[in-house]
């Protein structure tokens, strides 16, 4: 599995020389319809590097209606920057992580991609209200289905080693690997789930990663294919019982039928 995931991640990775430094492209699709990328600039006289976006992330969100002047969104944005040790330059509109040692660059770059994905989630903060109905419904069904045999934590991380990759729900069953569940409301969520899965494998942290979709076509075909091939990816609508039963089985090791 690790090799398959490494292949999936690395196949789409590109590195180009540009006048500013190195331009890195990933296979993760951003909300503007282009793959997410970032730049590595350095080393400076102290041997330190800078990781930064192309300066488009925040202006695109703002031009699309996600106003960072709105208090709740601004707080979310500031919290994310603090969590990832990143800064935002209001003049250049660049997001960056500064003073990175060469030895830490690859891990820091992966964290930076996670930050970019999570910032793009902010565009869906208004849409999430409309989507909250099925998310609440599915969470309730899951709580009922687990029958108290596992604990559900909302907006949590699997372990301290994976604190940069939080999930919508973390389900902890007794003597079982924790289950990180993402609600597949956008491609970004799928990529966050893939990033968690890949990082967990790399760090040998036990966890299962689930993306629960409302409908089969809730995300693009490419994102759906990646989820199907690399994650546990049930579809809720039209198969609510089976979808929840699958997650319960992963979290507890028991089928729902066996628990009745």
């Amino acid at each position: 599995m690790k090799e398959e995931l490494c292949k999936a991640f690395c196949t789409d990775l590109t590195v180009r020389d540009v006048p500013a430094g190195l331009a890195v492209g990933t296979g993760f699709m951003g909300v503007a319809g282009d793959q997410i990328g970032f730049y590595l600039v350095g080393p400076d006289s102290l041997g330190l590097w800078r990781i930064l976006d192309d300066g488009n992330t925040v202006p695109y969100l703002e031009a699309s209606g996600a106003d960072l002047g709105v208090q709740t969104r601004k707080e979310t944005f500031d919290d994310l920057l603090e969590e990832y040790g990143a800064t935002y330059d209001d003049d250049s509109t660049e997001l960056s992580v500064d003073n990175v040692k060469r030895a830490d660059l690859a891990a820091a770059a992966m964290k930076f991609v996670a930050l970019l994905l999570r910032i793009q989630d902010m565009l869906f903060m208004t849409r999430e209200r409309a989507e909250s109905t099925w998310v609440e419904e599915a969470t309730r069904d899951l709580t009922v289905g687990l029958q108290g045999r596992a604990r559900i934590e909302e907006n949590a991380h699997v372990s301290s080693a994976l604190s940069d990759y939080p999930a919508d729900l973390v389900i902890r069953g007794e003597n079982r690997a924790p289950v990180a569940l993402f609600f597949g409301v956008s491609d970004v969520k799928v990529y966050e789930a893939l990033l968690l899965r890949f990082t967990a494998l790399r760090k040998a942290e036990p966890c299962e990663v689930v993306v629960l979709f409302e409908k089969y076509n809730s995300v693009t075909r490419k994102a759906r294919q990646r989820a199907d091939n690399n994650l546990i990816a049930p579809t809720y609508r039209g198969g609510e019982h089976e979808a929840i039963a699958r997650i319960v089985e992963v979290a507890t090791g028991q089928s729902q039928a066996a628990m009745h």
Partner: protein
Amino acid sequence: MNWRDVVQSQKHVTEAGTWQSGKVARAAFPLSKSGNKAYRVGNKRWRAVRFTVGALEYRVLILLNEPFEQFQATLGAIVGNDMAVMASLEFHGTHGDWHIHHTEEDVAKIPAGFKRGSWIRKDEPPTPPPPFTRTGFGIDEPGAYKLTVDYFRLDNTSQFGDTLGFGQ
């Protein structure tokens, strides 16, 4: 009228614009979704071209960041106080390929604003004519302006043929 019709129509450039830094004035490229704020382009130089086709008014906003090898030329139609974005010719240093985001919809059916939804698709040139060398950039401000003029036929001459380099 969709974006191909606009490109192929006879145009009258009313303002060629100049290269600038900083925020893009709302009059140059209005976007109601960004509230009262001007569109911020941060680390890029920008130039806005205004033109008309018949009675309708259009804009092309050119963004350029040479050190990052980023180019974007966005064609939009003025709809009231807002902009219906029809097409955007782009190059990103992080991926190194020329491509265009576009919608084949009539301007009347395009949601106003910058956000790219399901109505926008992305295409790459199947057979790259110059300057679409796929991995090349090498564009400065005069080059970026010339490419925009050529591609969107702002001077009413055809440099890229009827397929606009991207097929039908």
